[in-house]
Each structure stands twice: as structure tokens, then as C-alpha cells.
């Protein structure tokens, strides 16, 4: 199948999906109270995008996501490199990390609330906490992916430590680092959303949770669409950069 055909079929599928979203509730096949028709959701979307409180909520959420990201990624990265470079340290903590991975971090939300209240700091702290483990794992994987052969060759040509870092480690780790950024962002965003939905007075997560409880489905769907589009856009952006990196890599 040619690329054009694939894109055409995808557009077709999207059109069917959107068409069904409009058509099914309009004709009453699906209860429009439960699934507001697409056109209504889009109207509502523009409506809430124009509202001051929603824009403020978006700003708050964006700030929380960014600050948590800026804390979690370097911190987790440093720990991850340490775990990969120091075999003993890694042997101790790697299995613990694997276990920590599989527990629902949300059960610790009450502690974050007690420690930080339900404001900005709490969201940032919880999102950092829920993201940092994946960053640690990915960063160690990135370091381990650097081929010992490359380093050996560089060393045999008398490369300095700084040169090895710049010329070997960074380029070979680049794709995994980008992948780490991408996955951390998914975790981070999820963490902020849960914290906002759980206990908060601000943020988009708080707003959609509220709309859900008050059965304001057009607003709820509009909010979900905004969040989903934002998440997918960032994801695609990083994937695009990953693709560019891997073309020169292979």
C-alpha cells in the first residue's frame, strides 16, 4: 500500500468516526445526553476556550506539567546514569525500581496532600514522583545502549573523557533520550491530571472532573478533546524528532 493510500484510508476512518459521533446521537440511536453530538461538542469547545476560567486552568495545568517535567527529567536522569555506571548501586536498586513501577502511585496522593496541601506544589510534587521512576529506568537503558566497542575505539585513538561524552555517549543515546522525554511526558501529564482530578481547586483536570460530576457532558467532552489533542501533539512532535535522529543513526 502506498503512503498516499494509507493516509487516505486513515482520513476516511477518521471521517467515519467523526460522522458516527455526529450522526448517532442526532438520530437518537445513541442517547445524546450520554454522547453529545460532535457539532455541539465543537461549539462548546470554542465556547470554553473563550472563557477566562478555562484559559486560566490551562495555564495552571501547563505550568504544573512543565515544572514537574523540569524537575523529574534531570533528577531521574542523574540517578539513572548513576545506576547504570555503578554496577553495585544498580544491582541494589534496579529490582526495587521494577517493583515500585507496578504499584499504583496514586495511593500516596493522601501523603502529598498532607505535605503540600492541594495547590500547585502538590501537583508538581506528585507528578514528579509519578514520573521519576520511568526516567531513571530509561536513562540507565540509554547509558547501557552505548556500545562498549565505540568507547574502546575512541579511547584507543586517545579521546578525552569530554570528547567521549560529546562524540559517543550523547549521539548514541540521543534516540533513547528523546524516547525518554516522550514517555516521561505521558507519565507526567497523567500524574498532573490525576492529582487535579483527585483534590484541587484549579486546573483542567479539576474542571473535567467537575463537569463529569455535574453531568455537563458537552463541556466534559470538549475538555477531553482539548487534553487529548495537546497530549498527542506533543507526542507526535517528539516522535518526529526521533525519526529525524534515527535516519542519521542507521
Amino acid at each position, binding site marked *: *500500500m502506498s503512503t498516499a493510500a*494509507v493516509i487516505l*484510508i*486513515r482520513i476516511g*476512518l477518521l471521517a467515519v468516526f467523526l460522522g458516527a459521533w455526529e450522526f448517532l446521537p442526532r438520530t437518537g440511536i445513541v442517547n445524546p445526553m450520554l454522547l453529545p453530538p460532535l457539532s455541539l461538542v465543537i461549539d462548546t469547545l470554542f465556547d470554553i476556550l473563550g472563557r477566562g476560567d478555562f484559559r486560566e486552568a490551562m495555564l495552571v495545568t501547563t505550568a504544573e506539567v512543565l515544572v514537574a517535567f523540569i524537575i523529574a527529567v534531570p533528577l531521574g536522569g542523574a540517578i539513572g546514569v548513576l545506576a547504570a555506571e555503578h554496577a*553495585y548501586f544498580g*544491582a*541494589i536498586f534496579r*529490582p*526495587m525500581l521494577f*517493583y515500585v*513501577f*507496578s*504499584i*499504583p*502511585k*496514586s*495511593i*500516596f*496522593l*493522601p*501523603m502529598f496532600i*498532607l*505535605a503540600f496541601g492541594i495547590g500547585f506544589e502538590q501537583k508538581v510534587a506528585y507528578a514528579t514522583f*509519578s514520573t521519576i*521512576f*520511568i526516567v531513571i529506568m*530509561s536513562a540507565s537503558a540509554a547509558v547501557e545502549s552505548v556500545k562498549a566497542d565505540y568507547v574502546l575505539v575512541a579511547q584507543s585513538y586517545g579521546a578525552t573523557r569530554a570528547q567521549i561524552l560529546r562524540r559517543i555517549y550523547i549521539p548514541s543515546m540521543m534516540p*533513547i533520550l528523546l*524516547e525518554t522525554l*516522550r*514517555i516521561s*511526558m*505521558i*507519565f507526567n*501529564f*497523567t*500524574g498532573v*491530571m*490525576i492529582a487535579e*482530578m*483527585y483534590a484541587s481547586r484549579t486546573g483542567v483536570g479539576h474542571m*473535567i*472532573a467537575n*463537569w*463529569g*460530576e455535574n*453531568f455537563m*457532558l458537552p463541556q*466534559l*467532552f470538549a*475538555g*477531553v478533546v482539548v*487534553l*487529548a489533542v495537546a*497530549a*498527542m501533539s*506533543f*507526542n*507526535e512532535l517528539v516522535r518526529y524528532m526521533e525519526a529525524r535522529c534515527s535516519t542519521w543513526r542507521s
Partner: protein
Amino acid sequence: MTRPSPRTVRRLIGLGLLVLWEAVPRFGLLPELFVPPLTKTLAVLWLDRSIYGAALLVTLYEVAVAMLIACGVGILTGAIVGGVATMRNLMLPVFSSLYAVPIVILYPIFTAWFGIGSESKIAFAGVYGFFPVMLSTAAGIRTIDEQYLLAARSMGATLPQMIARVIIPASIPTVLAGLRLGGALTIIGVVVSEMLTSASGIGYLVTMNRTILDSPRVFAAIIVVLALSVVFDIIVRAVERRTLVWQTAGRRTASPEAAAPARLATV
């Protein structure tokens, strides 16, 4: 000086954490509201064992049904997407793009649709666990060494024989990794949704006791959830050990594609 083995150190760390959990609040280093002593928490758990037991049953029921859905639908969809080239080209990028959406934002929709009972938890956790199972199954099928299929054809295998005797066994390791992840995510999904909006289950006990500032009971619920994760992990490991033969070989590479969904998306 020889270092103690990592396992010993880990055990010591675990023990140390337990001791700290008891000592820190006892000596007033942190208020009991923040961390109630371990013994006090365990005492409360024992006292309220019928409440916690009942909540655990609700949670387990939701987890079981959600896992069935996530695994069943995930394996089926993954097999189609991974096995049929057209579907793969068409749908895989779409699915991995959708994977970026924090699924938790769908939960308010599920409560609006299904109410705040078990149905909304099952639906949410099912969707939550579905993605890794589906992506792993697709990756598992896609990364089967073509040599295996070629060899089977040269030996005259029919398509059903190919599926039953080559494709399924060859994709088991990756699918298992996906089930492990999907299972963990299903548990997480149930607990998270119970914490958000609900009237029963372990997650509900966390939230309910938090709002009345009954920290020992919050921590008792946390202990139950941790125990649930540990038990799940032990079961999965046991299953994995039984399929060790599959794990040791059989894949073109430990491809990053196959590993990617195996990264735990936990919150």
C-alpha cells in the same frame, strides 16, 4: 572489605524502611497524621479486617473482570494489527499515538455513562490495561523471526498449523510481557478510579479515610494495595519462570519496539 550482596542490602533497606515507619512517628519526628506507626496501622487493619476484606473483594472482582476484558480484547486486536500487514500500516501508528493520551481523563465520561459502581471501574481499568496488551501482542507477532515462518512453509505447514504451532508459541514471551504490564495497569486503573469517584473498594477506603483525616486507616488501605501488587508480581514471575524456554531465544532482537510497551505506565 567485601560488599554485602545486593539482595542483602535490599533486604536491609526494606527492613530499615519498616523500622523507620515505626520509629519516626513514635519519636515524634513526623506527626502521626502524616505517618502513623506501622504497628498502629497493622492493628487498625486487623481490627477492621471485615471492612478491608469486603473492600478487597470488590476490588478483586473489578480487577478480574477488567483483566479479562483487557487481555481478551488486547490479544485479539493485537493479533489482527500485528498479523495483517494492511492493518498494521494503517492502525499501529494511530494506536501508539492514542497511547499518549492520559487515559484517566476518560474516567469522568465512564462515570457519567456507567454510574459510580463497579461498571465504570471495570470499563476504565479495561481500557487502561488494553493498550500494553494490544501493543505487545502486535509487536510479538510482528517481530517473529521470518526464518521460523519460512521453515514452517518449507515443511508444508498450512496456515492454521502455522498459527497454532509457530506464530502463537513464538509470540508468547512478548505477549506475556504485555499481560504482565496490562495486569499491573488494570490493578492501578481500578485503584485509581476507586479513589476518584466511588463508593466501595480499597481505593475508596483510601479516599474516604483521607477526608476524615484517619491516617492509620489510609495506611492500612495502602498496605492492602501494596500486598495486592506484590502478590500479582509473584504470580506473574511464577508464570514467566514456567515459560523460560521461550524467553531464552526466539526473537530477532530484543527489539526496542517490543520493549517499548513493556515500560510500565503507572501512576
